[in-house]
């Protein structure tokens, strides 16, 4: 078995499966295999390429654009996210149901800000948002 590759299942594109290199961003790997995806900056600074991780693990250390609420909702930035295991994703704008939020209607708690300015999340806090 080739340990450098994992299987990505794209749930909202008919559960189609793709074998991809773990070392490369998912956006590049999936685009090369014919999956048409939105993108913008390609360095993790905007959320145009966001997808939702339904299962599996990824590394997106280069992503700076997502706040903790978006991260808690499973959003990943495909342009910088590299898979650490087999993963199941929703991709494209169809996965953006929780990505956007009117800040005057639904303010962020201090622990929901972007990781560089968020306060630590209270231990054992129940999700009530």
């Amino acid at each position, binding site marked *: 078995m080739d340990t450098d590759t994992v299987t990505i299942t794209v749930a909202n594109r008919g559960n189609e499966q793709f074998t991809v290199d773990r070392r490369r961003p998912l956006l590049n790997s999936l685009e090369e295999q014919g999956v048409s995806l*939105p993108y913008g900056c390609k360095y993790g*600074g*905007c959320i*145009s390429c966001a997808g939702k991780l339904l299962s599996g693990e990824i590394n997106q250390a280069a992503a700076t654009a997502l706040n903790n609420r978006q991260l808690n909702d499973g959003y990943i930035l495909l342009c910088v996210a590299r898979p650490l295991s087999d993963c199941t994703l929703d991709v494209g*704008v169809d996965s953006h149901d929780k990505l956007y939020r009117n800040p005057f209607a639904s303010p*962020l708690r201090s622990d929901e*800000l972007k990781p560089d300015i968020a306060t630590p999340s209270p231990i054992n806090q129940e999700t009530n948002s």
Partner: protein
Amino acid sequence: MNDDLTSCCGPGYASPAEAMKAPREKLLYTVALYIGTGIQKPDYLATIDADPDSPTYSQVISRLEMPGIGDELHHMGWNACSSCFDDANMERRYLIVPGVRSSNLHIIDCATDPKNPTLHKVINGDEIKAKTDLSAPHTIHCLGSDIIISMLGNAKGEAPGGFLHLNKDFEIVGRWENDLGGMKFNYDFWYQPRHNVMVSSEWAAPNTFMPGFDLEEVGHLKYGRELHFWDFKEKKVDKTFYLGEDGLVPLEVRFHHDPDSSHGFVGAALSSNIIHWYKKDDGEWFWEKIIDVENQPHPNWPIPIPGLISVILLSMDDRYLYFCNWLHGDIRQYDITDPSNPKFTGQVWMGGLLGKAPEVNGRKVTGGPQMIQLSLDGKRLYVTTSLFSTWDNQFYPEIRENGGCMVMVNCDPENGGMEIDKDFFVDFGKEPHGPARCHETRYPGGDCTSDIWI
């Protein structure tokens, strides 16, 4: 080359007064976007017929797609303006159309066939990042035969960015500025050479604003609140004004068109104030708040809604100030004959979150009044409804299905007053590839935010 034998000169006009006598605009160039919509098509430059005698009046008559998707076209500028009026070798021929997210600069030939612009050249964003460590291009002004562009971040999307310098052949010269001083962020700029000054404003780092607007980040000092006065010849920040709570997120910068005037204005988007500045008799720059738009409560939301002044504009005769409250949904007109004491002379409503004008003249408006462009004679204001794809998706998510639109507002430059035109309406929801959004507009002959006199 300019082949008009009655003129010995280059592009533009000898003075603002001459510009006001120019023929009426018959074409509009407006950026139209698919980024953020789910439609996997490039953003494009839409050419709109603005000639009321034409059978295709108020329609998109051609579309120039960018080479790839994901640019987020936003603002644009000409290669030449009235700042090279004395240079017969220059011509207003190319629109420079940047992608904020991609950092690509598209150079578009609008002169060979004005109704069908063509792509002349692309300066790739990766090349700009590699050569200058800059990204996220925003405002473009020409400086005689050179071009400078405000860049809002470094190659990683971090503040403060700087200014990109291109030569007239659209080659990267390097960074324009010598010294950013303590500038924390970058956004818009305007220069007034007879006072050896340039003023620049502050939005935020690309990594902060590109994902959307987290209001809480303002309190964490992730958004700007300062205004920078540059020594224009030395290309360095000479003086910085801290605007504080009165000047949260200062965006569009406009000097008077009169090149002898030191008066200028900036709209503070989040504070929803207009800030005015001028040089006092002792030679010191002075700023003051002259207009304050009150936040409005919403019945179901915990935080009142600011107007969010996303754009301001001055008429060519410097008599009227126009601005948009993108979230409230109104466009306002003030007589600024006395710049310290503006008089509220006109207002129209279209879209917005307050529910005051979901339709105008029977047409649905999605979004709020956003980018505006005024005819040189001051009589027609063209308005589009999209701000920035991620911000649109936060505040006006239905724009994905409905697209943006352009309306025209008839303005009375004699007595003041505004009225939305009943005949002109461009529905970007009906575009061939699906609903698009529309942003900044330029006219082939120059407009009220393109030209500077030196």
